[in-house]
């Protein structure tokens, strides 16, 4: 603003910051962190940090992609199982057909892009809700994963990636560790940060970012002003598929074997992380940083309960309570920021 407008109440910097969706989530994250840091010394140690950041990283990568998709007004329930599919393709090609790890990864990427493209194409062409379309993909991929794995190996997993060509380099890049402050941190954390930064840039500073908000906010209106809505949505599904491929590769390289049921059930964790981070389920609103912080909140609560040593039978009870508290903290902060007058 160049000149002050008499119709604007003065607002402090803090309140202007707190009003942003992602910063509300950050407050939730602080609450959860402070809580568990008080419960367990290991949790707040560098060692503990490296530990709970590790699963938060893979979750975060997916949550960011899913957040973009949700801002664009769609769901992808097949994203979790797709991490398994890409991992399986990669391991099978590298171990059974003697491809190098890199070539196998490229092939898996191609498959992921195809699946994402098909998801998107079916959604925009048939106008069926993406919830149903990707649910079907989810179920079908789940069957393919198990059926093909069984047919090829006779068991429910494939392994032996360690012996494949290029394994060491690929692992160092995607699934290795970096010593820092006396502990080993997973490189996946760096990928997570990079993905979040990239997604934030795309969302807030590029044309496709503007289109994503628009198709999620009101697809008809967006189309009417010339936004290529179909292309945007298909691209979003493909982005999610690429993220699934990245996570699938990270996991496969790390464990050198992939189970046929890997990734099942994760799809909702991604959505949960995005929603905790402030994405609307109805589309058109949210942020990549928020989704990342949501993944962190989920990761902290999930591991914090273990660090605190609470009874495992009650694990999900505590998890639910923590999620509710974190989102409530987030909400109250934002409400304070929006409503208190000075």
């Amino acid at each position, binding site marked *: 603003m160049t000149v002050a407008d008499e119709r604007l109440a003065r607002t402090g910097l803090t309140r202007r910051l707190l009003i942003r969706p992602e910063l509300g989530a950050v407050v939730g994250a602080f609450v959860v962190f402070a809580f568990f840091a008080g419960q367990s010394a290991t949790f707040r140690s560098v060692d503990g940090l490296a530990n709970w950041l590790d699963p938060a990283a893979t979750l975060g990568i997916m949550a960011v992609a899913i957040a973009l998709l949700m801002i664009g007004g769609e769901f992808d329930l097949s994203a979790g199982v797709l991490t398994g599919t890409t991992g399986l393709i990669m391991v099978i090609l590298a171990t059974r057909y003697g491809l190098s790890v890199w070539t196998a990864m490229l092939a898996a990427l191609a498959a992921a892009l195809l699946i994402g493209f098909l998801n998107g194409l079916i959604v925009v062409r048939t106008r069926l809700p993406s919830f149903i379309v990707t649910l079907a993909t989810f179920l079908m991929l789940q069957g393919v994963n*198990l059926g093909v794995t069984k047919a090829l190996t006779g068991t429910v997993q494939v392994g032996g990636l360690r012996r494949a060509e290029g394994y060491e380099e690929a692992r160092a890049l995607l699934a290795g560790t970096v010593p820092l402050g006396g502990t080993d941190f997973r490189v996946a954390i760096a990928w997570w940060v990079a993905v979040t930064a990239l997604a934030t840039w795309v969302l807030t500073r590029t044309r496709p970012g503007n289109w994503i908000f628009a198709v999620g906010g009101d697809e008809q209106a967006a189309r009417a002003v010339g936004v290529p809505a179909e292309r945007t949505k298909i691209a979003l599904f493909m982005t999610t598929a690429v993220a699934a491929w990245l996570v699938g590769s990270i996991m496969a390289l790390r464990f050198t074997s992939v189970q046929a049921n890997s990734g099942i059930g*994760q799809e909702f964790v991604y959505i949960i992380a995005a929603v905790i981070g402030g994405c609307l389920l109805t589309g058109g609103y949210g942020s990549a940083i928020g989704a990342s912080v949501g993944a962190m909140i989920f990761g902290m609560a999930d591991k914090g309960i273990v660090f605190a040593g609470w009874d495992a039978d009650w694990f999900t009870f505590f998890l639910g309570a923590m999620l509710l508290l974190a989102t409530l903290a987030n909400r109250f902060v934002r409400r304070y920021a929006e409503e208190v007058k000075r």
Partner: protein
Amino acid sequence: SSGRGGDQGATVPAGAANAAAPAAEGTFAVITHASAGDAFWDVVKNGAEAAGKRYGVTVTYQGDGDPARQSQLIDQAVSQKVDGIVVSMANPDALKEAVGKAVAARIPVITINSGGDFSREFGAITHVGQSEDVAGRGAGEKLKAEGVTKLLCVIHEAGNVGLDQRCNGATKGLGGTVERLQVDVGNLADATSKIKARLQSDPSLNGVLTLNPAVAVAARDAIADAGSAAKLGTFDLSADVVAAIRDGEVLFAVDQQQYLQGWLPITFLVLYKENLNTVGGGLPVNTGPGFVTKDNAEQVAKLAENGTR
């Protein structure tokens, strides 16, 4: 037209090496309390299907962890008038009605794995294998012998009866403290970090028991990452687990020889159908527990890769 499908049965299996037994006719349903893709039950399935091939009969395999849905599967098999039903009874109470219906329809039933105590009462002709409880006890005793006093039992599916029984058995066998941890088998990075978190925050834990081979690999990494000296035992095999046993990273894997829990009941049912033979005389036929350790890992390795161990 209904030329194909299970209800017609009796399609001749391709390449059946049925030299030993005369080709029999029949459809047999195996209905377990585990969903498709479970590592343990997959071997049972392989055993049952191999037996079916061998005898030239049709074997269908279905499974569901929800007792309601499992009982519906039994009802369906009864509707299809199969020639025999193999069922694992993790929750005998819930299956009582459905099994009773099968028996009333004069369909022979064999129970496997769990529910042996009720097998006779419900009218099954025999029981094969023993309960998860016994297997768990064996694992607990083995860990106790290794000096484990405080054990972490990693449950990868909360509320699953079979897993709970394994942990309960281990508690009895160990005699010491057993703590539980819930992880998600669909996300191994998460499982690794949870096991590690538990070991980091409670250094007095000196043993870990996992109930699934994939989780065993995760636990192995977690123990190494946490710099813990905890001993690791697991249920069930995979190529990775066998390799880890060979390398001394995993002490043992409980081996119920569950392949037999698939193979034997089909054999018994075929015999019953053709010859009215019954086996065991009302006593359960035990298939284990056996253990895969460093000593026999080498031999088992190849078999585990083929999905028969």
